[in-house]
């Protein structure tokens, strides 16, 4: 891999006195989809939070060659969009206002309008429901809206936390397909956390398996599918 877009080196993170990451190292290249797998409590969500700055962390975190800032606002301005656990929907605001918030770091009005159109091409239902209160959307719709909000920032890297959680397989496939086509069209990279290893490996180039805050296995999606332990513990066959 050439110079990675995102590089974590021996990153630790803690919630108060409890250490959640014990030194994670991983890389995400340009235009790559990388997934992070592992059981509950392995540190998947914390890994994303360490990158976006929403948890106290230490160690080497580099984005596009320079150190990642500490505050989430500053990380967002660098072009890292985080679709968080729980989707981060602004319940009381309209779908439109949610999209506008996604583009908060941008100033170009024309580009914004163009991107709203493009997001609607991927998620046509949005066109009919722009004035609706976002809290009224279904779980799947809120997940798509969260992705759309992230796209609106025109990020260089998108962090997605458990996109498949509680959703029907058809919707999960749609979400990953859209993610892929946005990457192809706009040259973005993605780091996806997933408990559903089958889905994740199917849609990513490489993957890391976490166990209690450490990287246990890493490799291409193909290699991991062939790995005995990974198959038994995470893929279930």
């Amino acid at each position, binding site marked *: 891999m050439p110079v990675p877009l995102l590089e974590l080196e021996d990153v630790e993170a803690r919630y108060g006195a409890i250490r959640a990451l014990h030194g994670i190292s991983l890389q995400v290249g340009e235009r790559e989809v990388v997934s992070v797998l592992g059981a509950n409590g392995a540190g998947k969500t914390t890994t994303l939070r360490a990158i*976006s700055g*929403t948890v106290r962390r230490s160690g080497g975190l580099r984005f596009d060659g320079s150190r990642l800032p500490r*505050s*989430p*606002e500053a990380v*967002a*301005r660098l072009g890292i*969009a*985080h679709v*968080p656990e729980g989707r*981060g*929907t*602004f*319940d*009381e*605001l309209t779908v439109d*206002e949610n999209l*506008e*918030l*996604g583009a*908060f*770091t941008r100033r170009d009005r024309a580009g914004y309008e163009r991107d709203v159109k493009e997001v609607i091409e991927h998620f046509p239902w949005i066109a009919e429901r722009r004035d609706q*209160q976002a*809290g*009224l*959307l*279904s*779980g799947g719709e809120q997940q798509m809206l969260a992705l759309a*909000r992230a796209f609106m*920032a025109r990020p260089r890297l998108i962090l997605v936390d458990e996109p498949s959680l509680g959703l029907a397989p058809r919707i999960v496939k749609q979400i990953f397909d859209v993610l892929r086509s946005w990457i192809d069209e706009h040259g973005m990279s993605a780091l996806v956390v997933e408990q559903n290893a089958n889905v994740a490996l199917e849609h990513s180039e490489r993957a890391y398996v976490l166990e209690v805050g450490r990287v246990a296995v890493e490799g291409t999606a193909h290699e991991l599918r062939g790995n005995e332990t990974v198959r038994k513990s995470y893929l279930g066959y």
Partner: protein
Amino acid sequence: MADVLQQIVSGIASGGVYALLALALVLIYRSTGVVNFAQGEMAMFSTFICWELLDRGVPYWIAFFLTLVISFVGGVLIERLVIHVVSRAQALTVVTVTIGLLIFLNGAAAWIWKGEQRTLENPFPTRTFDVGGVVIAAQDLGIIAVSLVIVALLWVFFQKTRVGLGARAAALNPESSRLHGVPVSRMLALGWGLAAVLGAVAGILVAPTQGSFDQNFMLPILIFAFAAAVLGGLDSPVGAVVGGVAVGIALNLIGTYIDFFADLRLPAGLLLILVILLLRPSGLFGRRIARRV
């Protein structure tokens, strides 16, 4: 009938003042999650600043806008230096701090301005209009007009601007807002600045109607503003305006037709707060968000 209409118009005027203060309470409640007990004293302090400027010969409208600017900066500083420090503490701690702020501002004003009765210049003519038998005071119209303009400006800011949207988002979901690059902390300070400006306008409008004022003149008015905010729903800006006007009209009408009521205005305000909190804590327009999971 003309008499009733007359009382309603002057009720709307005092209601406009309650609405501005109630809006300030709602603004801070939505973003900080606490009721700001110092809101009245912040308004009182601003009123004294305006008085001081006028006393030194500054022309009225320049003094007015200068006071708003100073109040904004003061509100931001209060958030940065006091509220922000305890922002991670429990709501009760923050509430206690606002009560401390109330006592501090009251004491500081009494010290700086000697606790004397002052008279604030009235910007509106003292004449009245006769509209089909209904006598309307120019001052009431002026207060209503200024309140409307302020409410409209606030609405435009929050609904139509990028920063306004960011401020609303920061209050609703700070965590998610941060991930979108919204400077949440600065938005909270902005909210306190705007609340201070609302209070300043309310204080400057209401002081001349009372003849004279001292450092305690805002306390009863804050009770009615509380009643207005609670009636409308503590987290609803629309509710604050509707509640303010409703409380203003109700107090005026009851006061006109029930002789002994003048002395019972404050207890009535408190009773209203109590009844609403017991029967309908979310008020008329308070948040009951529909949500599918």
